[in-house]
């Protein structure tokens, strides 16, 4: 165990705080408001086109911090390892986490490993927790969303979910669909730096755009209208979804967020977004309408009829025909 920790994890994550090899990392307090979050990762397969469980575990937590407008600083990581997991796999994951942490400008400062009996885990599960610092006074939350706000996304939707499904089920598409997994904190920092008022941000993960919008509409007690034609979805993702009977609006992403901003700042926001590698295909997809105690999200179909865009009760299941 000791060998694994120093050989695999310390080697991959080395930094002064981790290198003290003490029970807890001692961090200098930046003296501002802090953001703190945690998330666990159980993806199967562990490696998929465009990412793996390691990079996902870093980006997921970084993105959760970023959604509060925080600059992510430190991450902890806990590994639940199933007995028999090849050491090479663990090394690959640790290296991927290290590269992801570097890309996301965070440090992995403390960690834990547990090994469970064979058959009691799915290779490896990872938990990460993260601390970020808020270097501003603004509040980013569903309660800050206002009628008239525009709803934006930073890029095309559904690639992560379809990439994972393809590698899990052995489906082959004509072109390889790679996950959209990416860290979003830098993008958010740039928007804040440019003075774009961010009323609310949320990363689009499980349940896709639909779940994300519904959660915010419900918390805000507002009614949203989106236009399906305006939502960027790549042709290969749409095609794969059509074949499997899935709706891309419910498919998970790992490097996408929705943004709620006041209309006068649209031009500025789009300029910043499209200047960043994670926002090249940013688009306005909808608008916040008035108060609505039901917190409904509505959608205008391509032929111009409005309907409810609801949250699914469970996971989307592929259809028969």
């Amino acid at each position: 165990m000791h060998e694994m920790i120093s050989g695999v994890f310390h080697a991959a994550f080395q930094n002064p705080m981790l290198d003290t090899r003490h029970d807890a990392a001692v961090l200098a307090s930046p003296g501002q408001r802090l953001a703190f979050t945690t998330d666990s990762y159980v993806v199967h397969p562990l490696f998929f086109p465009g990412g793996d469980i390691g990079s996902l575990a870093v980006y997921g937590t970084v993105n959760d911090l970023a959604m509060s407008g925080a600059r992510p600083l430190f991450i902890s990581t806990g590994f639940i390892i199933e007995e028999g997991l090849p050491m090479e796999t663990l090394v690959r994951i640790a290296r991927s986490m290290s590269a992801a942490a570097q890309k996301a400008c965070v440090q992995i400062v403390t960690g834990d490993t547990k090994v469970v009996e064979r058959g009691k885990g799915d290779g490896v599960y990872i938990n990460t927790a993260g601390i970020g610092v808020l270097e501003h006074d603004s509040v980013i939350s569903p309660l800050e969303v206002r009628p008239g706000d525009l709803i934006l996304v930073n890029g095309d939707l559904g690639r992560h979910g379809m990439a994972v499904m393809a590698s899990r089920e052995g489906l082959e598409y004509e072109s390889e669909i790679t996950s959209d997994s990416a860290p979003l904190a830098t993008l958010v920092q740039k928007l804040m730096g440019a003075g774009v008022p961010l009323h609310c941000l949320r990363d689009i993960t499980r349940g896709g755009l639909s779940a994300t919008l519904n959660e915010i509409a419900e918390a805000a007690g507002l009614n949203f209208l989106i236009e399906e034609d305006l939502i960027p979805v790549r042709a290969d993702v749409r095609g794969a979804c059509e074949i499997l009977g899935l709706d891309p609006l419910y498919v998970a992403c790992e490097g996408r967020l929705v943004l709620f901003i006041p209309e006068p700042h649209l031009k500025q926001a789009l300029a910043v977004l499209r200047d960043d590698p994670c926002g090249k295909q940013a688009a306005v997809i909808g608008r916040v309408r008035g108060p609505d105690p039901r917190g409904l999200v509505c959608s205008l179909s391509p032929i111009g009829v409005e309907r409810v865009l609801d949250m699914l009760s469970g996971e989307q299941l592929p259809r028969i025909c």
Partner: protein
Amino acid sequence: MKYLDEYRDPALARKISRAIHRITTKPHVIMEICGGQTHAIVKFGVDVLLPGQITLVHGPGCPVCVTPLELIDKALDIAARPEVIFCSFGDMLRVPGSGKDLLTVKAEGGDVRIVYSPLDALSLAKANPSRQVVFFAIGFETTAPGNAMAVYQAYQQQIKNFFMLVSHVLVPPAMRAILSSPQNRVEGFLAAGHVCAVMGYEEYIPIAREFKVPIVVTGFEPLDILQGILMVVRQLEQGRYEVENQYSRAVKRGGNAPAQEIIKEVFEVAPRKWRGVGDIPHSGLKLREQYQSFDAEGRFGLSGMTREEPEECISGLILQGLKKPGECPAFGQRCTPQHPLGATMGSSEGACAAYYRYRRFTDFGKPRERGVIS
């Protein structure tokens, strides 16, 4: 995207909608057969673009919905056995049997797996010779060729641990049953495009003649459906009752001959019970004598099991076009996708699920101009 965007074009949709308005002079009731069409209609709002005189009612073409309760209970019984790997298409997993659904059996430790093709189930059987692999073969003529091929290959390769729980149904006998009912109100049909891609449409010609109903083979995109409706309305207004093909990009008059051959090789026509509707003669498929050793009901000794439907559910009336989901007092109250009373709500393709998902608030379903956002 090719084959999608051109069939969702708003300007063309308006154009066809205007043409339907122009030629409609009296009320008509039209039924779309397939659950995929039902969902497209409600999701895209195709019905909203129609004149008030045209009523669309939703047919029995949701394979999950018409699979009888006892078959689902048999599936649950088999899936719970420790020696079994139970394989199913995904949307069957949430459909309630008498007590629970397949997802619950899975959560309780049953080895239930979602597959994308019956051949995947056959591969699982080969890879797991010590287990009994059972595939839940439900559906219409669309899924029958693939299921037949899996049995055929299992027979050729002498795979002894592969079985099928068969609940195959056929469209034309169901149409006859609907049209023969004294309460029938259906005057024209949109036939299911993908069923016809396999079977062709010659078998619909006698139905159109006998019952004097226009039948138009129709696709699944909004423009397909609008055009199919236009063709049915035109026939109704002109007093014609012919079989026409709107979906010519996928459907040929004779259908797909090799697919039909493999169905005939493995299956034979048999009476079937339809959930909510009851027994319909000659309305299903069962394994031929030669392939009986692959029959899961025989293998697991479940042939005798029968079940009655819950009384409160009116899915039978909905599947025959006699009621619409909103007319059910339980709709959205005691019956929701989370707690369905029947399969039309429990299946993702069911008519009740479509109305619940897209229309459960009355202020929806009005056409409006696009471009309100930017």
